[in-house]
């Protein structure tokens, strides 16, 4: 992609835009629980998240690029989170910070949402209860890689994935293929057994989501139109 022509450097437009995006992430910290302490530790000078270009928390979702969901989300809180997500301008990314935001954590009860990916698309999960600041920075760098190489996302699907739909379906199916001997029944959450059963495949419409992205090259628009006709 990058080639040196006697002092000039050529690259693609996407690559430059994504490079600038990944080093100027404005964050919206949606802090509800103890994970907030680790977020603060990562943001303050010991670990210093500003080294990665993500130093400015915005307290308005309309100015933010990344939504950090830090802590337990209850069903009572879920409409608020959904509103915040809807208010953010594209392109936008969501990070589920810690066990509770990722899966409900140890709260499997009447009040807690079992993972925010049931409500909004999530780009990155950071494991831990709560995660160490190192894990937070690692997650942030993963997100930056994903921004650089996959570009902006809409509804959690990258345009690359849409352009190469068939390959993506194959890839996902290969990745989630489970040998027969390892199949086990999930007693707690029977819905998840669907995946581990033989013969499962990702449906096409799961992949084929039309992205709404800030810019579209004419070629991309053609590709999208062609994809829609299919």
């Amino acid at each position, binding site marked *: 992609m990058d080639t040196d022509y006697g002092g000039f450097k050529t690259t693609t437009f996407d690559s430059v835009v994504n490079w600038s995006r990944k080093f100027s992430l404005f964050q919206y910290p949606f802090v509800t629980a103890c994970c907030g302490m680790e977020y603060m530790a990562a943001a303050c000078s010991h670990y210093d998240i500003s080294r990665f270009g993500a130093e400015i928390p915005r307290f308005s979702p309309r100015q933010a690029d990344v939504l950090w969901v830090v802590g337990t989300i209850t069903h009572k809180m*879920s409409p608020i989170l959904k509103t915040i997500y809807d208010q953010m301008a594209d392109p936008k990314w969501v990070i589920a910070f810690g066990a509770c935001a990722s899966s409900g954590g140890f709260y499997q*009860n009447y009040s807690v*949402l*079992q993972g925010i990916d049931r409500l909004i698309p999530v780009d990155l999960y950071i494991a831990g209860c709560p995660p160490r600041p190192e894990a937070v920075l690692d997650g942030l760098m993963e997100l930056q890689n994903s921004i650089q190489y996959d570009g902006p996302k809409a509804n959690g699907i990258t345009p690359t994935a849409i352009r190469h739909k068939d390959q993506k379906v194959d890839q996902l199916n290969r990745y989630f293929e489970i040998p027969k001997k390892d199949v086990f029944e*999930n007693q707690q959450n029977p819905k998840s057994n669907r995946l581990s059963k033989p013969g499962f495949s990702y449906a096409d419409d799961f992949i084929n989501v039309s992205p709404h992205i800030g810019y579209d090259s004419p070629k991309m628009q053609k590709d999208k139109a062609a994809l829609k006709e299919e």
Partner: protein
Amino acid sequence: MSEEISTKETEVISEAGELTTLLQEEFPDAVSGFHAHRGDETVVIERDAFEAVCRFLRDDLRCSFEIMMDLTAVDRLEMKETPRFEMVYHFKSLTHARRLRIKVLLTEEDCKIDSIHHLWKAVDWYERECYDMFGIHFEGHPDLRRLLMYDEFEGHPLRKDYPIDKQQPLLELKEVEERHTYGRHT
């Protein structure tokens, strides 16, 4: 199990403490049971006399319980005891530096009790929480709404017959393909 640990035995063995004796003298019909454990007394009160007993505990100089520390209910469904609910009130007296626990038994069909928010202001939200979680009705409470759960929530989650993982989402949720239980290979 020593004698002190077994509640049933202490209940039989223990003698009526100072406050219990006082309540028995003042309200001979109201006290239906008592026990004491290491100086902390528990008195079981009939529901009809509950408000009068509370007023006496607050105003009488021998008691002067200025603080209502806590209020909650116990659902004894799985303990197979009747009646089903047991209200527990904790009072503290700063003047005499002592505590008192009052219990009132409520049946499932008629789980109502007099509100005591006019005696201690702190009771207000405790009673709303107790109504929210257990469905106990506090008669005379000025604003008996849910405190913690949302208005659309049906049922009372801390009752033992509420299913342990039943959820009532406010928004439509997506199905999630993967969830792993940790190390539970059967």
